[in-house]
């Protein structure tokens, strides 16, 4: 299990390759990557991501550990960036390795659902017309009830 919180970009290909190369027992590798999306209006300049150093690593570790307990997983990787990102930049990735794909897919979805609402990150969108904090969606909170 590896948890990384950093402001620097990460190399998706290198991370996915290294993660997939770990253990032959894992027949399924799932990766998910979150990318800064430009707004419907197309005027997003910067996405600023604030976090709570210390608690962030702790919350991500707890979420990943919970996933390891609930599914039959060989390994979990979570990388999440903070700081100033531009549209198209990769914000985060999760990867799961499991003997079977169902576990790998479900655990990746679980990680994403929990990471959205339980890891202390806050996004602020800076556009040509001003800056605004992204509001949490009820749907994101509701998504947790299925687990």
């Amino acid at each position, binding site marked *: 299990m590896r948890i990384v919180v950093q402001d620097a970009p990460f190399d998706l290909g290198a991370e996915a390759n290294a993660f997939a190369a770990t253990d032959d027992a894992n027949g399924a590798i799932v990766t998910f990557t979150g990318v800064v999306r430009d707004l419907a209006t197309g005027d997003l300049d910067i996405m600023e991501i*604030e976090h*709570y150093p210390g608690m962030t690593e702790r919350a991500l570790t707890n979420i990943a550990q919970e996933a390891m307990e609930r599914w039959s997983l060989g390994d979990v990787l979570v990388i999440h960036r903070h700081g100033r990102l531009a549209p198209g930049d990769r914000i985060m990735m999760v990867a799961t390795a499991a003997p079977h794909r169902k576990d790998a897919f479900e655990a990746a979805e679980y990680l*994403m659902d929990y990471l959205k*609402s339980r890891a*202390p990150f*806050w996004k602020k969108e800076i556009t040509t017309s001003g800056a605004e904090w992204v*509001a949490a969606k009820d749907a994101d909170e509701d998504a947790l009830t299925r687990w």
Partner: protein
Amino acid sequence: MDVLYFAWVRERIGLPKEKVETDAATVSDLVAELSAREDRYAAAFADLSALRVALDQELSDFDAPLTGVREVAFFPPMTGG
């Protein structure tokens, strides 16, 4: 104890972190104490349903006791991922 503020709570109060000497028994008591200080605190804490609290870096709630707690953090609902 250390009191930390994040995102718009930090912006509204105007600082990321401060030391607070308090005998507040619960998080709610601490919120009442801070809100009574100045308008900017009262404004930040006006709607507690829009806020979350962590005690020593674990999510908690406003009824929780502060006994032994060293770090309290206030922030809006999280938007990771």
